[in-house]
C-alpha cells in the first residue's frame, strides 16, 4: 500500500461527512473609495499618489523615482506608461539575479482593495516574479476604476480580468517587527508607492 493510499484511507475512515458547505459569503457592500484605499496603504507603511490625470502619470512616476534617489528604474512589459529613456523594460526571460541592482521597479496592478490597500499583480515568468522583490522601491500603477471595496470583490474582479493563474496581493513595503520594532525593507522593497490613475 502506498503512503497516499494509507493516508487517504485513514482520512476516509475518519471523515464524518456531516457538516455542509455554508455557501457563498455575503459581505456588506460599500462604495470603493480612493480615500479609504489611500488610508489603508498608509497604515501598511506605503504611500499613494493621486488620483492623477492620465496625462500626468509618467511625470508622477518619475518624480516618485527621483524621490528615492538614483539607480536603475525597470518596468514590467505590461505597464502601459511611457517613461522614455529614464527606464528600461524587464526582459521576461532574463536571469532573475540580473535584476538585483534594480533601484525602482514599476509595475501595473490589476485590482486594488480599499479595505486593506492590497493590489493584485499577475505572476508570470521568473524575472517578472522576482522584479517586485529585488528592487529597493516599488511603484504600482492602478486605475481608480480598478478599485473594489473588499477582498471578496477583489477576487471576483481578478477572475473577471484574467484566468485563475498565479498572482500576488501586495499591500505595503516589505516589513518585519521581529527585533522589537517595525522596520521596512526586511528583504524586499523598503517603500511602496501606488500611483492611482483617474478615470
Amino acid at each position, binding site marked *: 500500500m*502506498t*503512503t*497516499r493510499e494509507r*493516508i*487517504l484511507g*485513514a*482520512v476516509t*475512515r*475518519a*471523515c*464524518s*461527512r456531516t*457538516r455542509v*458547505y*455554508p455557501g457563498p*459569503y455575503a*459581505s*456588506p457592500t460599500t462604495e470603493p473609495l480612493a480615500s479609504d484605499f489611500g488610508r*489603508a496603504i498608509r497604515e*501598511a507603511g506605503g504611500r499613494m499618489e493621486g488620483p492623477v490625470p492620465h496625462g500626468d502619470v509618467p511625470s508622477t512616476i518619475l518624480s516618485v523615482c527621483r524621490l528615492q534617489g538614483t539607480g536603475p528604474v525597470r518596468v514590467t512589459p505590461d505597464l502601459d506608461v511611457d517613461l522614455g529613456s529614464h527606464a528600461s523594460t524587464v526582459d521576461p526571460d532574463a536571469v*532573475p*539575479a540580473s535584476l*538585483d541592482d534594480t533601484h525602482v521597479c514599476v509595475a501595473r496592478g490589476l485590482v486594488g482593495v480599499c*479595505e*486593506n490597500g*492590497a493590489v493584485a499583480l499577475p*505572476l508570470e*515568468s*521568473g524575472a517578472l*516574479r*522576482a522584479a517586485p*522583490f*529585488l528592487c529597493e522601491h516599488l511603484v504600482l500603477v492602478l486605475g481608480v476604476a480598478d478599485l473594489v471595496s*473588499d*477582498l*471578496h470583490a*477583489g*477576487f471576483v474582479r481578478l*477572475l473577471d480580468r484574467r484566468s*485563475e493563474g*498565479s*498572482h*500576488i*496581493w*501586495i*499591500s505595503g*513595503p*516589505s*516589513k*518585519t517587527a*521581529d*527585533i*522589537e*520594532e517595525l*522596520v521596512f*525593507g*526586511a*528583504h*524586499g*522593497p523598503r517603500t511602496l508607492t501606488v500611483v492611482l490613475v483617474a478615470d
Partner: protein
Amino acid sequence: MRHALDAAALESFPDDASLGKHFDAVSDLRLRRDAAAARVVDFEALRTHAASIKRHTLDHLDSYLARFEERAQEAGCTVHWAVDAEEHNRIVHGILAERGVRHVVKSKSMLTEECGLNPFLESRGIEVADTDLGERIVQLGREAPSHIVVPAIHRSREYVGELFHRTLGSPPDETDPAALSAVARRDLRRRFLQAEAGITGVNFGIAETGALVVCTNEGNADLGMHLPPVHIACMGIEKLIPRVEDLPVFLRLLARSATGQAITAYTTVVRGPRPGAELHVVLVDNGRTRLLSDPEHRDALACIRCGACLNTCPVYRRAGGHAYGQTVAGPIGSVLAPGFREDTPGRTLPFASSLCGSCSAVCPVKIDLHEQLLLWRTRTPFGAARAPLGARLAARILARPRLYRLTGRLARGLWPILSKRWPGNPVGAWLEGRALPPHPGTSFRTRLAGRKERGP
C-alpha cells in the same frame, strides 16, 4: 506534572525585565487584534463563516485532498505524500539530493519545524538558511522558535545585536533594529541569489484549483520561491479550503487575528511552477489523521496558525513559548499535541491552563479551545492504573468527616511551616509565585458552632 517548576527551569526569561517585555509585547498583539476586528463590521460573521467552511472541509477531507492533488498535478506540480515526520524529511532530502542541491533557503513553516527538517538536512550536508528574520535569529542562536508568528519575541535588541556581531559580523555595539535588519537583509539576499532550492510552508491549499497560498510580511517566501529553480512546499493535510472564493474569508481574518494588520504585506497564490522551474508539494499526516478520527477533538484541525490564542493566553504571556517544550506553544499547541500522538510529553499541557476561555473568544475559526483542554484532562492517561496517591488520599479524607476534621486541625497546626518555601515542601510548587492567605485561626465549623451558641 511540574509545569510551574519546569517553566522556571527552562529559563524562558533570564530576568523580570525581559519577562515584563515579553508580557507587554504579546499583550500588545491582542490589543491590536481587537482594534482591527472592531473596524470590520462583519468580523463575527466572518468568524462564523470561516468556522463553518473548515468544519465542512474536515468532514469531507478525503475528497478535497483527492481534488487538490488532481488539480495541482494538472497545473504542473509533483505531489508527494508523507505519513510521518521521518517520511517527510526523507522525501524533501530525496528531491534535493537528486538535484545535487547544497544550499537551501526556507521561509517560515511550523510543519518543517515539527518534523525536524533542518537538523535532518544539515546532517546530510545540506545548508539550510531560515529566511524569516525571527526564524533566522533563533536559527543563529541555536534555539527553537517561541511563538508561531513572531519566533524571537522573547529576545531583546541587545541580544540580537550581540548575536549578529558574533555570527554575521555586525558592529559590536549595534542594537538599532533597522541597522540589524539591514545586516540580515544583506546576508540573506546573497543566500537567496545563490540558493538552489527554496522550501516554504503553505498557509492555505485551494482544492478547487490546486493552488498554494503563502502569506508573509517580509517577502522572504517570495524570494525563496521565485529565484531558485526548485520550490518545495510542505503542507499539513488539514490546510485545505474548498474554493477560491473561500480564500478572502480566511485572509480577512488571518492577519487581523495575528497582529492587527488588515492583511499581510504579501499574499502569494501559486498555481503550478513557473515556466522552466519545478514545484513539489509534500502533503503531511504526522498524527493529523489520528486527531481527525477523534470526534471530540478533530475541530482543532481547523486552526489557521494565526497565534491569537497565544497572544491572549495569560499562561503563555507569563511563561513564554519555550516552557511548553514542543513546536507549537499556547492553547492550540496544548490541544494538538495530545491529539497527534499517544504518548507525547505535551499530554500534561491541558493541565497547565487556568481555563479562562480567552483563547476560544479570539480564535478566528471558533475552535472551542478551553473546552477541549478540559476534555483532554478527563482523558489523559498517566500510565498508572490508579489515580495519583495525593488524589486517592484526598478522596479518602473528604469521604470521612472525622478524618477530615482531624486533617484540618493538623494542617492548621502545621500552617506556619507549610506556608513557607523550603526544599521538599509538598506545597512547594503551588507557592511559586503565590502567597498563601494568613492563618485562618479556627475552623469554619468551630466558628459557626460558637455563633449559634451566642445567638443572633
